[in-house]
């Protein structure tokens, strides 16, 4: 149990992000059932209400749906999942570019570095 959380933000928000990542990366497959709130709370080692809040957040984003018989399942809307993945990818790229700029690299430098990296890794 016991995932790591940072101190500066609400735990439910971090949990929601973590679950989103698991969905867009395919660890939780589209259409598959999610663990129950209590089971997840026990696994992660957090309050069930925290898990509930994270789940509600994902529900309002449409990433998960509640089925009366099957509990909560990951959405079957592949377009939504891929949109969400693009959004996450853009955020990661922004973070990367900003970090590189903070080190003093220009956008051209960064392009060259990435091209060099690709040559070395092929």
């Amino acid at each position: 149990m016991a995932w790591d959380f940072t101190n500066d933000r609400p735990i439910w928000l971090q949990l929601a992000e973590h679950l989103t990542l698991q969905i867009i990366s395919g660890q939780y497959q589209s259409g598959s059932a999610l663990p129950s709130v209590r089971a997840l709370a026990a696994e992660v080692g957090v309050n069930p209400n925290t898990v509930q809040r994270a789940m509600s957040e994902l529900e309002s984003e449409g990433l998960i749906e509640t089925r009366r018989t099957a509990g909560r399942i990951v959405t079957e809307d592949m377009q939504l999942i891929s949109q969400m993945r693009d959004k996450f990818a853009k955020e990661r790229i922004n973070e990367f570019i900003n970090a590189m700029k903070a080190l003093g690299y220009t956008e051209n430098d960064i392009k060259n570095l990435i091209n060099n990296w690709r040559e070395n890794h092929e």
Partner: protein
Amino acid sequence: MNNILVSARSLTKTYQNITALNNINLEIGSGKIVGLLGPNGSGKTTFIKLLCGLLQPTSGMLMVDGKSIGTHTKSVISYLPDRMFIADWFKACDLMEFFSDFYSDFDKNKAMEMMSALGIAPNDKIKTMSKGTKEKIQLAMIMSRQAKLYLLDEPIAGVDPAARDFILNTILTNYNEDGTVIISTHLISDIERVLDEAIFLQNGNIVRYDTVDNIREQEGKSVDQLFREIFAYGMQ
């Protein structure tokens, strides 16, 4: 979910010339896990003992489940004291009989399951158990009741980190969904992630009562960090 389970109005408790609780006003809802946080001597245990009816308030009013403290409230409260309460010569099975005799809401099967998860056999004597095991077995008994209010006074104080995880997990997986759990402790970083709400006590006063989410959102820091700031020694 948001029914008021505990309400205190102008609650005051003094021991001779020491004020342990000073004019406390609060309402705690049901279905919550609440941390009662404060340094030593801030009034945590006094508040819990008042809820149990082990102490009488000097003035003010205290209600649990809509009733004044008495027979009814005692029947819906499951209390873990801050010290050993089991007789040494008991065996694990005696303890279970004892609890099912005293409490009609005691779930024996649940207790058996927890015992076996702890690796305790029914014939094991309490006397031969380590301090940590004794604490765990007491908690298992307390959490096996279907109570409305669980009062846990320093449940993780004397045990190693692995046992702490076990204890927190036991609390998380076993509390009654409509029940509220009040945990008093000063080991905040260990329990912060299981809490809904935090009550900060200082010298018998409530200095803050808020949800953990609000504290993190507004302060941008954990409850543990806020605690260290509020209760910092020797700094102004």
